[in-house]
């Protein structure tokens, strides 16, 4: 679990000594420098190598969790921590995670993580009975949406909703996800185009295709098409892609500085 923030201690504390109900359980994680958002603000200009490397690290972290049959379900910018000394990023906050081998407190919730970042189908109240689609598909969507945030400073959900007619948005539509899906897909097509505009040309096409697969609004079709029959929600292809793109960008950076 090299790309998942490690808990190094735990404990509990009563905040108000007179009141036993104010007891708080806590976990201590290895110290990170900052979350990814602070790091983005510190960048003088868009650093493609860093951004794609971050995506690579996060995809690796999610793959490591999935390997252990755990779905994170709450990946968002504030849950990506930057460790400068190790020159890496890690995912943190497994408070909403789903473990295939152990029951968790949020397992029965329609949306396990923060609603604002939930996969678009979950915003419409869609709840797949297939745990792979619901749990691992959620992580996949979050990874794509993180890519949108890193480059465009917005989320896939807001891009999508912005392009939907008001009556087709999640807060209004109450006729089931299947009936609204074609409209969402039409909005998704335009959102991909918009996302692509924020990506440097070196990685534009690759990232557009990757995000189109990661955030596909139809959760049953989410993921790499070649993985659809088996290991639909595998991150391996994306890890390779992000690694290749990061190397390309790093090489270009080296050549420029040389």
């Amino acid at each position, binding site marked *: 679990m090299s790309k998942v923030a490690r808990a190094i201690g735990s404990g509990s504390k009563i905040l108000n000594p007179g009141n036993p109900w104010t007891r708080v359980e806590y976990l201590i994680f290895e110290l990170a420098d900052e979350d*990814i*958002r*602070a790091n*983005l*603000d510190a960048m003088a200009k868009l650093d493609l190598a860093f951004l794609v490397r971050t995506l690579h690290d996060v995809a690796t972290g999610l793959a490591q969790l999935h390997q252990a049959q755990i779905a994170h379900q709450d990946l*968002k*910018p*504030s849950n990506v921590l930057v460790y400068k000394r190790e020159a890496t990023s890690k995912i943190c906050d497994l408070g909403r995670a789903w473990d295939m081998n152990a029951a968790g407190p949020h397992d029965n919730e329609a949306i396990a993580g*923060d*609603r*604002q*970042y939930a996969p678009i189908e979950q*915003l419409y*109240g869609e709840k797949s009975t297939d745990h792979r689609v619901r749990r691992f598909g959620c992580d996949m969507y979050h990874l794509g949406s993180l890519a949108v*945030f890193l*480059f*465009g*400073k*917005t*989320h896939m*959900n*807001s*891009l999508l*909703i*912005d*392009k*939907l*007619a*008001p*009556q*087709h*948005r*999640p*807060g*209004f*539509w*109450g*006729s089931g996800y*299947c*009936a*609204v*899906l*074609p*409209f969402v*897909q*039409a*909005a*998704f*097509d*335009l959102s*991909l*185009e918009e*996302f692509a*505009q*924020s990506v440097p040309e070196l990685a534009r096409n690759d990232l*557009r295709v990757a995000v*189109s697969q990661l955030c*596909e609004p*139809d959760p049953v*079709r989410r993921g790499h098409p070649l993985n659809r029959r088996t290991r639909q929600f595998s991150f391996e292809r994306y890890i390779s892609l992000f690694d290749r793109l990061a190397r390309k960008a790093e090489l270009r950076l080296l050549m420029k500085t040389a």
Partner: protein
Amino acid sequence: MLKNDDPDRQVVPRWRSVESALKFRELAPLAQRPSDAFSDSMLDDLLEDWKRQPGLSVACDAVSAAFSIGRGQHAQIQEIARFVLKDGRATPAARRIASRCLGIETEAEAAGLSASAAIGGPFGDIRATIGKMRERLRVYHLNPILWTNLALAYTTLGAREKASRAMRVALAQAPGHRFVVRAASRLFLHHGDIDRAHAILARSPSVEADPWILASEIAVAAVRGRSSRLLAKAKRIIEARNHSLMHLSELASTMATIEADAGSAGKAKKLCALSLQDPAENAIAQAAWLERQKGIYVRALAQPQVISSNEAEAWSEFQSARLERASEAAKNWQFEQPFSSRPANFGSYLFLLRDDFRGAEQILRIGRASNRDDPMLGNNLAFALANQGRLEEALTVLAEFSNRTVDPIPAVCLTATAGFINFRASNLESGRRFYQRAIELADRCGLPPSAAMAKVHWGIEELRAQSNEFPTKISEAREAAKSLPAPLSGIYLAMLARAETAAAAKPHLAL
């Protein structure tokens, strides 16, 4: 020359671009979500982050997340959105979302869903739009709405096979979707494949649940000459009123037509009135047709509606002899249904009655792109061209129908137009023979209005030619015009008067 009003109009589904369908409320959800799906408390963590770490990325994160759950109006989010807009480093996408939260950009753009997916209308460069759509589908192909719009664009150009292919993909991707299913059915109706048009609706997984699809199924079954197996179901749905009146409008209108055809005028009237309480565009057009053709008058039709029907407006203005308004409405009707022959037919006729031959030609060129075999459109185009002095082109168009069997009305029109072209080519005798033949044919087929119209045009041509026969023929023409029903009588008398004024002003036209 007017082909009679559709004698058997059914509420077959309209096929419009998705933008237009949205405007006409055909894509609204059957059920609305409870308003408490999302709440302000969902923003607490983000607002806490903003207090601790007030940077651009946190601001963008907060604004974007709030917008996703429809909480862009939250006071603190608005403050953060202003911060985003002030920061020059914010990306265009982040700035737009911040603007949306602040209400700086209207929702009108969003209501258009996908402006770039629109076909551009019949007067736009449809070929360029098709190119763009195909390019987008190459990048992301799971887009049944765009496939449907592509099929519409192909149909508008008359590319049937390509349209069918695009529609098949859309259907495979969204077999139960209201917009796709209704569009597909309309496409195959346009192609004359009525069985298939009906099967698509009847087999749709949503046919019994969605009153819009159910209405289309019943209407297309009627076109097919069959009675739908879902009539009882439709009655129950209307009686139950579990859906809003707007969603029931087309279904009530369809059932009104079924009842009217069965001779139950009372039931038809009640259903028609129901269909107009919160009407769909097609229901308004159908109510106007029921009034014209079946004498079923519903008072609500005369009252202002939430939306208007260009088809109904065109007919209504025509009946009031306001030809300019009628032709504009018909033009808009064609803009919505560019592939349909009906707006092209009626619209071109209205332009011809106003002596606007260029306007008629424009509307006909669009209509003929996907209705090349329609003899009335060919006839009207030949007439419009000949009136502009383009006789060779007019003859070429007319020749397309020379060896074809056509219905009596277009046959009369085509023959009379041949007479007209001969007059304009100074072949007076030949022109007279054609006009005579047209009138005889109309008489034989029991079409007195067609015969009368031919007489009016013949008289005008004799007058224009200042021939020896013109006093007799003008007199006959005037009588013929008087015999026409309103509003045609007044329109044709005015046409005669215009011709007489022109002849008096330009005596040099005499041969």
